């Protein structure tokens, strides 16, 4: 318990410092947050236009797709606002920058992940909550479950980022591959699960586990189903466990870059 509280204090300190660092370039920070909000809004506008012309897609309506976007953007945003290095692990490995994190008297992975905050991620968080409140107009129970599912999605994005980035331990420079893999995850997560059938569905449970974002959370919120919510959480925890396992297995193969550089 003491260790958990100690870690939460560390998280809070990093979030505060990272946020202060972002505010040093206030104009750039605000413009990136606003731009990401507008980016997300453009995608939702596409779906609103689509459903205006075709109101139902295999029992899915515009509210369901807005729910996917709200959960995916808010979850992705929370993950990368707090654990901004989750999407950077392959590049840190390729550049030999893991060394510095191994020198601290702390567990490497949970500390390393805190090293960066993505400014655009804050735009995602604002958008996710705003669009859910304004477009779906949830009652208190739905909003509470939505918030919990945003947490589950954030865990999944962190775990997946760690897993995708850790292939760098085995392949050397896997920056592009990790980026493409994460891109596939984000893209599949934001389209209705009902579009995908057969073998692709197996992929969406395993290599690109998007169904834990675009299927179970939506089903959970449709009927306040705690069993679907539990499956979403279990899936996220499974991906996180896989990511942590791959990272630690790969870390044993890591060779120092002997890099002499100030930490960014």
């Amino acid at each position: 318990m003491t260790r958990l509280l100690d870690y939460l204090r560390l998280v809070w300190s990093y979030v505060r410092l990272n946020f202060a660092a972002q505010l040093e370039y206030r104009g750039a920070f605000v413009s990136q947050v606003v731009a990401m909000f507008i980016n997300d809004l453009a995608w939702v506008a596409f779906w609103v236009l689509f459903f205006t012309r075709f109101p139902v897609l295999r029992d899915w309506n515009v509210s369901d797709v807005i729910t996917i976007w709200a959960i995916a953007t808010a979850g992705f945003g929370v993950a990368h606002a707090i654990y901004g290095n989750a999407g950077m692990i392959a590049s840190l490995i390729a550049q030999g920058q893991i060394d510095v994190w191994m020198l601290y008297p702390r567990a490497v992975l949970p500390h390393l992940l805190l090293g960066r905050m993505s400014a655009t991620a804050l735009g995602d968080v604002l958008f996710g909550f705003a669009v859910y409140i304004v477009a779906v107009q949830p009652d208190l129970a739905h909003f509470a479950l939505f918030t919990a599912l945003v947490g589950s999605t954030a865990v999944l994005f962190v775990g997946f980022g760690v897993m995708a980035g850790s292939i760098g331990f085995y392949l050397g420079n896997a920056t592009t591959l990790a980026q493409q893999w994460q891109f596939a995850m984000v893209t599949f997560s934001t389209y209705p699960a009902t579009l995908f059938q057969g073998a692709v569905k197996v992929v969406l449970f395993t290599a690109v586990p998007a169904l834990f974002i675009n299927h179970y959370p939506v089903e959970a919120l449709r009927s306040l189903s705690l069993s679907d919510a539990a499956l979403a959480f279990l899936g996220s925890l499974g991906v996180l466990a896989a990511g942590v396992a791959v990272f630690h297995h790969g870390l044993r193969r890591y060779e120092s870059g002997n890099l002499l550089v100030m930490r960014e």
Partner: protein
Amino acid sequence: MNALAKYVYVGRTAVRSNMAYLGEVAARVFFLTVILYIFLQLWLVTYAETGADRLGGLTLAQMLWYLVITEAITLSAPAVALEIDSDVRTGAIAVQLVRPLSYPLYRLWATLGERAVRFILNALVGSALALLMVGPIALSPQGLGLFLLALPLAFVLDFMAYLAIGLCAFWLENTSGLVLIYSRMTMIFGGVLLPIELYPDSVQWLLVNLPFASIAYAPARMFVDPNAFELVKVLARQGVGIAIFAAIAAAIYAAALRRIHAHGG
């Protein structure tokens, strides 16, 4: 070397440079594959559920080929605004200005060269995927010719917008936000994901006449449904769009040049 030959040489150099890094360009192909697969699923379900043979005047195969072209155009956009932003921020623009070249024209031709390579690669891969997924659509040499006439001015129009955005770096801390907003306006108002015929009737006329539609929608529509009479209107709209964006970029460039202070080197 006459003026035009200089810029053509810049364009050719950009083509050769991008040919040398085809691996980096090919990385974008993965993006295209995922997007096209997802859109195929989306439209397969939509055509099946509506029971329609044509939506927005397009068959399922034409719809996917339309998306191949809009995505190939969109994904071929080079990061020219961010490069101009970097030139301004690092002061490299001062070096460019002493060269016997117009900086905007140098950027235009370099961008056209880079974009040509990226577009051709995207279109080839997209076409292979579309052939696998939905098979061929009826194409004729004349139709392809009309499409190829609509394409270059679309690239020039897009460049003018990115030039104006990149030059805003003289006043803004970071222009990447503006780049993202502009690209999303092109996506939504320009019919990249959805042909404009499927938008609400009340906004179709306005969207077709905005410059955004001249970048992706117009060439893609010309590819799947070529029409010489329509091409004249497309070229006219592209010309007007280029004139407007170029005037904005020229005004920003003139104001920006007055802010440059070079102190030796």
